[in-house]
């Protein structure tokens, strides 16, 4: 309400823009795309498949009150208050992966045998603030 009282009467069509700044702050914590091919790392001699791999990553600012949207525990908000009010040497909550999906890899072993393996937690699928 306070904000509305201060704010000049804005014509209705800007209202959504006005609210957006509160609902979706700029460069908020979210999942970003990243694709690499093992040939870039010159590992394609021993990693036969997949040719391309998208590990993804999390980047962005954590809003002050991280509620259900990030599935963050209450501790995150406490840490943010500590950072803001008590001790700025305590780091702000960080934007990190919350969930992953596995990856199947086909590789040639040093002895010439071939192995198909499924590895856990190789692709970030969801971000959170912690």
């Amino acid at each position, binding site marked *: 309400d306070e904000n509305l009282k201060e704010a000049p009467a804005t014509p209705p069509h800007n209202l959504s823009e006005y609210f957006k700044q509160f609902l979706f702050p700029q460069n908020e914590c979210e999942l970003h795309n990243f694709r690499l091919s093992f040939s870039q790392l010159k590992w394609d001699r021993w990693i*036969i*498949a997949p040719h391309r791999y998208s590990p993804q990553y999390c980047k962005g600012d954590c809003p002050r009150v991280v509620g259900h949207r990030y599935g963050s525990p209450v501790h995150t908000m406490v840490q943010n208050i500590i950072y803001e009010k008590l001790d700025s040497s305590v780091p702000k909550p960080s934007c990190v992966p919350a969930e992953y999906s*596995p990856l199947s890899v*086909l590789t040639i*072993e*040093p002895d*010439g045998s071939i*192995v198909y*393996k499924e590895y*856990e937690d190789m692709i970030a699928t969801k971000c959170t603030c912690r």
Partner: protein
Amino acid sequence: SPYSRGRVVFDKSPGLLVAPEDTAIELSPLLRLPKGVRRGYALLPPLLKVLSDRGHRNWESEAPRLQPHSRALRYMKRLYKMSATKEGIPKANKSHLYNTVRLFTPCSECKRRHKDLMKGDVHSVDLLFNLDRVTALEHLLKSVLLYSFDTSVPVSSSITCTCHLFVKERDFSSQVCPSVSHSVAFSLHFEVRKRKWVEIDVTSFLQPLIATNRRNIHMAVNFTCLMGDPQQNTKLENPINVALVPPSLLLYLNDTSEQAYHRWNSLRHRRKNPVRPRQRNSLRVDPTGDKENSWGKRASRRRR
């Protein structure tokens, strides 16, 4: 690797296993492993181990790895396509219980039985498989001898083969010829025209050896192939010359390490759905065994 077999690395407090992910967290591909972590290094799954190797060594200049047979490579690429999507995500396939498949080509085969090969009807070969790459945390689900047919050989559409498999105890201490420890005979019928691969399930046969951490498996395989199909009671007649490439050994394994993907992993499930607070009204037996009394007490406590 050899020293990762069966070597369990304990922390100072007995009973605690140095979890591989601890070393994985410290492990930065660009840093050499600190001495203390080197022990845990042995437990890292091959992919992480090799990633860490590559970090501080220029892998290109390394001696080239032993290259696998092209047929083996073709088979494993086909297995990969059946098991994972193009992006490499494992397919949610119920029957697909394994999370690791290893293909070994024989590291040596006795040439002494060439004459049989020339005779054309009995294909006999001695094979030695080295299983050093199988880690202590990989449990055998299924093992298969994989024969691929030399497609250039014109073979009639239907043949029946009998295969005798002998596992040999290789007594490395003495040079005495390996003795046969046990053998088994298979009879299998297949249509060559439709397939290039024949899989012979030898799980029950090799299970005891692999379960006892056998590093080298030495076996002899005699193959006799005849024309015709016993089911169609066509007469099995003159043996044919089936050109067989020495078989590969395929191991379907369940890797129980933390880094491996477990479809049915209840741990993961619990992590995603944290444990709900225990139901207050679930009847818990009182240590003294008196249910009624404890029930009464609890109800009054709840009311309070």
